[in-house]
């Protein structure tokens, strides 16, 4: 077999291992879904009436479900990053990564397995959250092509954030610190256009909210799902996502190949 087919085979083996972990440890998957669903319900039913009235054109709670769902989806992705970072850090701490590194297996396989496993897990979580949003009144107006584009962008974004969380998991010394590292990511939907329009924010915060990477992704999803314009947001969203994926991939690879610290 060639090097490439070994790499594919090893990655598949590692993916199978990670999917098995997902099945064995359902609490992690439940957490991925439970947190954003709680926030969704909280924001729609507790704050939704008031926040919806403040949207351009008003519309109350019904309009707010539509507004907040794309933000909640990115909140889901950011939350899932914690699970990925923890499972990578646990692997490193348990010594099994060191074992893999002393075996003649493809160098990329261990990380690829984690990334693919987490992308699948996160996308299933995102699908569940969309389902619950639909149940409580989310009414997207997207065409099939719009849906396809939205899912494609989400998948790309999940891929990028997962590579970032793999790198964070490698950088963390323990599972505990790995669970804290991706925490700031979960704030980004709030400090962007996820829950309220950036135009309602004060100066400096507004500037940050408009230029941080989550905002163009949220705006593009909003445009695609609700049938509005996406404009320059789409290009920015793809550029940010590709950039994060590339940088994080390079970072994770370097961390994985570096010498382990002396015990």
């Amino acid at each position: 077999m060639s090097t490439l087919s070994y790499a594919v085979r090893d990655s598949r083996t590692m993916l199978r291992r990670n999917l098995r972990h997902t099945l064995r440890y359902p609490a992690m998957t439940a957490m991925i879904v439970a947190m954003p669903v709680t926030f969704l319900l909280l924001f729609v039913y507790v704050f939704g009436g008031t926040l919806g009235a403040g949207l351009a054109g008003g519309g109350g709670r019904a309009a707010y479900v539509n507004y907040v769902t794309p933000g909640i989806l990115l909140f889901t992705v950011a939350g899932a990053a914690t699970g990925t970072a923890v499972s990578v850090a646990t692997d490193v701490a348990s010594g099994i990564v060191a074992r893999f590194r002393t075996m003649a297996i493809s160098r990329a396989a261990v990380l690829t397995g984690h990334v693919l496993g987490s992308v699948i897990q996160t996308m299933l979580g995102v699908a569940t959250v969309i389902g619950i949003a639909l149940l409580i009144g989310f009414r997207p107006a997207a065409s099939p092509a719009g849906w396809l584009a939205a899912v494609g962008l989400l998948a790309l974004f999940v891929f990028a954030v997962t590579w970032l969380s793999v790198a964070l998991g490698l950088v963390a010394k323990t599972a505990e610190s790995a669970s804290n590292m991706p925490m700031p990511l979960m704030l980004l939907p709030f400090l962007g256009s996820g829950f309220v329009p950036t135009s309602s924010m004060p100066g400096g915060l507004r500037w940050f909210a408009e230029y941080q990477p989550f905002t163009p992704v949220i705006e593009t999803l909003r445009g695609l799902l609700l049938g509005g314009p996406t404009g320059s947001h789409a290009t920015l969203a793809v550029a940010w996502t590709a950039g994060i994926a590339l940088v994080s991939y390079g970072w994770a690879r370097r961390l994985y190949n570096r010498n382990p610290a002396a015990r």
Partner: protein
Amino acid sequence: MAQNLPAHDEPAIAVTGLRRSFGDKVVLDGIDLSVSRGTIFALLGPNGAGKTTMVQILSTLLGADAGRVRVAGHDVARDPDKVRAAIGVTGQYSAVDKLLTGEENLLLMADLQHLDKARARQRTAELLSRFDLADAAGTMVATYSGGMQRRLDLAMTLIGEPQIIFLDEPTTGLDPRGRRTMWQIVRDLAARGVTIFLTTQYLEEADQLADHIALLDHGRIIAEGTADELKRLIPGGHIELRFGEPAELASAALALEARSTDEQDLTLQVVSDGSVRALRELLARLDDQSIEIGALSVHTPDLDDVFLALTGSNDTDKDPAR
């Protein structure tokens, strides 16, 4: 010992001038060693001596700052994958996947060694029964005892039938029974022609298992040889005798060339390797003189004695395991 090998037989492990530091801390300071194929080699030293770093370099996990390291005939820096294909590593902490069952752990290793399905199942079943894990094969590893995890770890290492196996403190943290089981496993492997490089902080373990022992201290090899050669360097071994009467103590001291006597405790120490033959000779001499012994105890040299003898300082004090 490399000099004793025929030229055509490259040793399993050959290290010359190996150096490695972490920042300012020199961990390995010019190591030369050679391990013949099919033998058991023990690297003996206290915690912090550099044993784990040594294993990490030999098993391609860590780069060296200087020196030449060849394992299974390949340079670890130039051909790491060829080295990896020939070795198996069992680290100090069981590197097993606790969320999988024992059987799944072995099948995972078989997949990564690119065995075909039938061979993978056969090897897995074989190793599960050989390591007494067949009953627990379908249980999640998180529920295994320490000894079981260690055995599974070693079974995982053996899936690919490596020529050279590195065992980093294979019995640290095991109970006496688990330790004996592990020793038997290591002996069986050596009998099958596998080369074994193990690290330990217990002289007894090296003594029990190894054909050749090197003593590592502060990143240098301070002594090396067979267990017997090494023990001759250590004056720590002695027999202690206790007597009922001061008169008996005095006549025994005359008869036995005692190393030291303690008139208060009525004890004396005789330098001895503690072997049965030495013991028999000693008892025969006392018998000849009709000297009655109150109690007798044999003290074999341990790692503390070795370090005391060879370095003049007892570094094992820092060892929290003791």
